[in-house]
């Protein structure tokens, strides 16, 4: 028998980009930028809320005193749970070191899994995408994977949400075009949950807004953020910034610029309603200096967001990250490399709610083959972070002794008992060459595409009650679009 005292063990693989001291340095620098430089708010109500809270308001420019930021960091709700839309079951604990993964929103284009044609996203494509997300075991929640464009564009968000809620019971992160759209979507979600209080108690939707970097909180974003806070619904605020374009070229400078924008959003949410659940988002990457694209495959994206996860853990606030995406225009080796690196690294960093799985072509075109491949990568990545459990049973001295030199572990009970610790692939090929050839010599992307088609043709999501679906239809049909920038 052995005894262990004063002994430290890891229950997961460890990875850090920043130390505690560096996290503090970054946050304090962001507080300095929020005060010295400030950010611009384009919404009148937000300006009033911030002014009343003690921020210095000069026209659109708002300078936030550090004590207000620090207070907001204290008051925001740290414990955020997203639920199943059909049962209300509490499923995703978006907090601490939990890492969940799902798709991304708002791609103008998508690739049709049957014809391989690249076209504008439609009601049908969003419905299909949601079905695929619903069926995949490692995908935890759904974002739309496309802006519905075969309907009037100013009310596309209502159509998008309808397709989502009809095709999955997983939590939904909804990106609305403006406050009116968000109000309609909340109304629909309340219908599904059984009322405003029920939705707040067991929220299955999460709201989303983003500033325009550097440092601009546009009308739509600020209004959506305030509405989310007032409703007490989890709201993500995501600066999408690129080093050397909308942020400094240095990675630390990107962190400061991003935190400055996120935390300014946090302050607005807490001043609108203290305690509102706020999720700090980020798509921090580089402006590619050859092509001028916003890169979704750069190693800096993964590095920056793993760094942001460290800061989120330091601040003890939930975080929204980015993974499973690629700059490649098709699902090829490049797509696989970029998706795998980002998922593995993001998962190791412990960022809570990670999106954009299925983005190709630097975020402009969604691709369901990539979603299926990412589901497999996620299985592998989660095996990596499960780490290696060390105790008397797993050290396995008894069975090593029993089998002895020249023996065979395959038929031992110990082997059978522990076999499930290891990842069993569903998609990647490990078969011998002859067998793989007999099965059609398919590439991973071909196998993934077959699975996508199979899900679309055969998977049946848990349906919504008919009367609820009818009421949702009514809201969609009566939706009124508003011209962007319109205030009243």
């Amino acid at each position, binding site marked *: 028998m052995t005894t262990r005292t004063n002994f430290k063990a890891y229950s997961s693989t460890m990875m850090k980009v920043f130390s505690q001291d560096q996290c503090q340095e970054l946050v304090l620098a962001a507080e300095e930028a929020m005060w010295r430089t400030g950010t611009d708010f*384009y919404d009148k109500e937000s300006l009033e809320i911030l002014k009343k809270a003690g921020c210095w308001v000069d026209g659109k420019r708002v300078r936030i005193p550090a004590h207000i930021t620090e207070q907001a960091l204290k008051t925001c709700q740290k414990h955020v749970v997203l639920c199943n839309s059909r049962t209300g079951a509490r499923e995703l604990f978006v907090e601490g070191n939990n890492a969940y993964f799902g798709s991304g929103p708002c791609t*103008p*284009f998508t690739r049709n899994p049957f014809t391989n044609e690249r076209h*504008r996203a439609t009601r049908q494509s969003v419905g299909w995408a949601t079905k695929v997300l619903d069926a995949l075991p490692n995908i935890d929640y759904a974002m739309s994977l496309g*802006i519905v*464009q075969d309907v009037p*564009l*100013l009310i*596309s968000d209502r159509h998008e949400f309808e397709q989502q809620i009809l095709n999955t019971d997983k939590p939904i992160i909804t990106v609305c*075009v*403006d406050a009116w759209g968000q109000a309609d979507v909340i109304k629909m979600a309340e219908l599904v949950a059984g009322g405003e209080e029920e939705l707040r108690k067991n929220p299955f939707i999460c709201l989303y807004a983003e500033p*325009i970097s550097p440092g*601009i909180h*546009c009308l739509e974003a600020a209004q959506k953020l305030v509405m989310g806070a007032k409703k007490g619904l989890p709201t993500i605020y995501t600066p999408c910034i*690129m080093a*050397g*374009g*909308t942020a400094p*070229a240095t990675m630390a400078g990107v962190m400061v610029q991003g935190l400055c924008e996120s935390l300014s959003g946090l302050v607005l949410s807490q001043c609108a309603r203290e305690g509102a659940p706020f999720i700090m988002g980020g798509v921090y990457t580089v*402006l590619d*200096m*050859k*092509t*001028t*694209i916003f890169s979704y495959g750069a190693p800096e994206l993964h590095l920056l967001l793993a760094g942001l996860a460290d800061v989120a853990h330091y601040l003890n606030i939930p975080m929204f990250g980015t993974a499973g995406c690629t700059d490649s225009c098709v699902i090829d080796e490049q797509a696989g490399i970029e998706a795998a690196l980002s998922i593995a690294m993001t998962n190791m960093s412990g960022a809570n709610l990670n999106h954009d799985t299925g983005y190709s072509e630097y*975020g*402009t075109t969604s691709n369901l083959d990539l979603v299926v491949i990412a589901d497999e990568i996620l299985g592998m990545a989660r095996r990596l972070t499960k780490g290696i459990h060390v105790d008397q049973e797993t050290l396995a001295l008894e069975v090593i002794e029993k089998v002895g030199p020249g023996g065979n572990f395959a038929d031992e009970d110990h082997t059978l008992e522990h076999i499930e610790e290891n990842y069993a692939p569903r998609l990647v090929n490990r078969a011998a060459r002859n067998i793989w050839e007999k099965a059609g010599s398919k590439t991973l992307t071909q196998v993934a595409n077959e699975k996508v088609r199979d899900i679309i043709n055969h998977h049946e999501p848990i349906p919504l009650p008919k009367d609820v679906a009818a009421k949702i239809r009514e809201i969609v049909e009566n939706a009124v679009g508003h*011209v*962007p*920038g*319109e205030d009243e």
Partner: protein
Amino acid sequence: MANFEELSKSVISGNLAKVKKVTQALIDEGVSPLDIINLGLIAGMGVVGARFKNGEMYVPEVLVAARSMRAGIELVQPLIASEDMPSAGKVLLGTVKGDLHDIGKNLVGMMLESRGYTVINAGIDVSSEKFVQFIKEHKPDILAMSALLTTTMLGMKDTIELMKEEGLKDQVKVIIGGAPISNDFADEVGADGFAPDAASAVDLCNRLLA
């Protein structure tokens, strides 16, 4: 024989101080101001453009080179009658109404300037009426509109329609760009072209004005 090569090289390396110094020296020698621009400054930017296309130079290097070229041109400009100033063309640039996204359009503007275009930047959140007003005021060869959102890209069509109503569409080419924009959309709204990035926006302008 004036040393244009030294000037071109200084532009290529983005050495602003040296560009100013060499330009001034050439002016003092009595070299023709138009030759200084065409054989020295713009020739240097021509090399920069070619190298960028080949992937040998990056965006910030191009922009720094363009900045040094402009510093040289500013020294020469007072010596040339304004109608004689060489320009590849005049481009009016703006992000459409309701859209505050700025960076893509600005990169297009900087790349155009680096290739000798005169750029008038109308800014962000520009309404159709404002675009038309700018067109009347500045008489550009090309109007370049940007949008990042599917909800705002419709503003491009509104602007083109208004230009038609005002009888301006035949005088000004219209190009559009931004993440949700495509060739099909450009055809649909009646634009003369779509460019997927800043460098191809320059090529597109060159083609349209050729």
